[in-house]
């Protein structure tokens, strides 16, 4: 039986959330082709000794019939050349019907390396794939999700990445399927060493902007770097993080690490409090995953106000401190 092979991008044995989404999307694609879903995991012996069982279990619960483990000493850690060459080696041997990965940093990069090595087309950030006709009909995102593009793909081996969060990762109905583990030895030349991860530095522990349940963001309306003090205060009271718009990073008021949007971070908090942000489309695509949005803006016509579930139409410099005061007042008051 032919198969749709899914590259499981992982960091030292921990699969990305996107990888499980890609497996979920691949099940639909495979059903359309009458094919099975296989997973491809790359690592060295030590990595598989430590994480092999949990990686296989995650693949099995998300529908992989075979888990192909590419084992090589040069796959001890991530490297775009190493992963690209290992995938090319896998494809030459296993001859899958299609190769799919998540549109994460690693998934996208390894697939582009595979596409370059095989000189095949790669359709990036797909949200739906219909293999019913030849050529395949695919919808993908452009502009970070502000626009959709319908494309056709004719290829001897379709290569696709799946846009993050376009499907929700779902285990198979009826529990994990019976999964076969098959090891292969990728053919890797010494040149893959040129792009291996050499070192890593940890800067933050715990909640990050992308995982924080509350994000308090400021835009040009905040007016200065100092103006963010009241937003910091509110974020701290709520155990959240401070974000910002590109106007703010361009002015040097905050670091780019805080930027929400197409060229910044995608967030998905319980509530996004957007202060003095107009809601340009490139900002919106980073914020639209929020479950609730409160816009604080002096302009009732601002795009952010129109798109938000809740709004306060007033000067953020007055409203934000008042919210913090109210929170403190309620916390100081013994609950009845």
């Amino acid at each position: 039986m032919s198969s749709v092979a899914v590259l499981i991008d992982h960091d030292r044995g921990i699969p990305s959330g996107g990888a499980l989404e890609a497996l979920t999307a691949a099940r639909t694609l495979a059903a359309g082709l009458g094919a099975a879903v296989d997973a491809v995991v790359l690592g060295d012996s030590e990595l598989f000794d430590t994480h092999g069982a949990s990686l296989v279990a995650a693949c099995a619960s998300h529908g992989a019939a075979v888990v192909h483990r590419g084992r090589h000493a040069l796959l001890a850690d991530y490297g775009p050349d190493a992963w690209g060459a290992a995938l090319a080696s896998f494809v030459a041997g296993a001859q899958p019907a299609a190769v799919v990965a998540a549109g994460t940093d690693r998934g996208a990069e390894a697939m582009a390396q595979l596409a370059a090595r095989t000189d095949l087309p790669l359709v990036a950030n797909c949200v739906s794939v219909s293999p019913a006709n030849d050529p395949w009909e695919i919808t993908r995102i452009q502009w970070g999700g502000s626009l959709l593009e319908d494309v056709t793909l004719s290829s001897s081996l379709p290569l696709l990445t799946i846009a993050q969060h376009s499907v929700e990762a779902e285990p198979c109905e009826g529990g994990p399927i019976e999964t076969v583990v098959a090891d292969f030895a990728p053919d890797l030349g010494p040149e893959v060493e040129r792009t291996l991860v050499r070192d890593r530095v940890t800067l933050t522990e715990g909640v990050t902007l992308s995982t924080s349940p509350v994000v308090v963001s400021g835009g040009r309306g905040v007016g200065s770097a100092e103006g963010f003090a009241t937003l910091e205060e509110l974020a701290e009271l709520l155990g959240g993080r401070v974000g910002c718009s590109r106007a703010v990073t361009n002015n040097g008021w905050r670091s780019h690490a805080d930027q929400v949007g197409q060229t910044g971070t995608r967030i998905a908090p319980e509530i996004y409090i957007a202060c003095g942000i107009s809601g340009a489309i490139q900002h919106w695509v980073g914020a639209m995953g929020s479950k609730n949005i409160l816009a604080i803006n002096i302009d009732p016509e601002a795009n952010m106000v129109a798109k938000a579930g809740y709004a306060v139409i007033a000067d953020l410099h007055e409203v934000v401190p008042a919210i913090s005061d109210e929170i403190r007042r309620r916390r100081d008051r013994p609950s009845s």
Partner: protein
Amino acid sequence: MRILVCVKRVPAVGSRINVTADGQQVDTAHLGFTTSPHEECAVEEAAQITERLDGDGHAVVVLTLGPEESTEQLRYAASVGGTELALVVAEGGLDWDPQRTATAITAAVRELESSGGKFDLILFGNESADGGNFQVGIRVAYALGRPIVNGIKGIDVTEGGIVARRETDAGYEVYELETPCALGVKEGINLPRYPTMKGRLASRKAQIAALDCAPDAVSGGQARQRLHRPPERASTTVVLGDSAAAAPAVVDLLDELGVL
């Protein structure tokens, strides 16, 4: 050091993106144009790297593939640090197929190198702002036989090589590459400068080399059918107030959502 930066002209879209009636392009009737943000930072990074080096003979060559009007983005690049400019004219349909774009850019790099010498470093954006194909730079680097790492937010030039940092959720990863090599950079690696009046004036006179390596008409496997906007979330906005007196209503909401 000779550095090449590949930039792309894209429309500066505002609060929504409109598509032409035939669904083939972004409607740019009322829009200006700009350079993809990641690539703007790539130009700035190249300028900073060469400014830090001793001696002269350093170059920041800026290349684009696009319509004739892309000279606007090249001249802007010259006003913020680009020293040589090159254009491959490719009208309509260019951004439809990343494979074809990469083939043409590879040919352009070869041509630039045969006349001006090898580039020690080629910089791309992590992804183009419009197409977002995440692959053109990687295809070009591979065809040229050079290593490339994408997603770079820090570059240090060392003896004979480059140390590059890539952002992760928790911090960053470090890569060490030998030159010649290529990198895909991300916004945030630096804060691009604004052009000075002097830079602007000089850029008007800058020469633009026209390269004859437009992509051939043969399409790769990916072909555009139609652009369209995703369905918009219908939303009605509940206005909680028009002054600081709205604070209690906001805190009630936070309480309801369980984030207090």
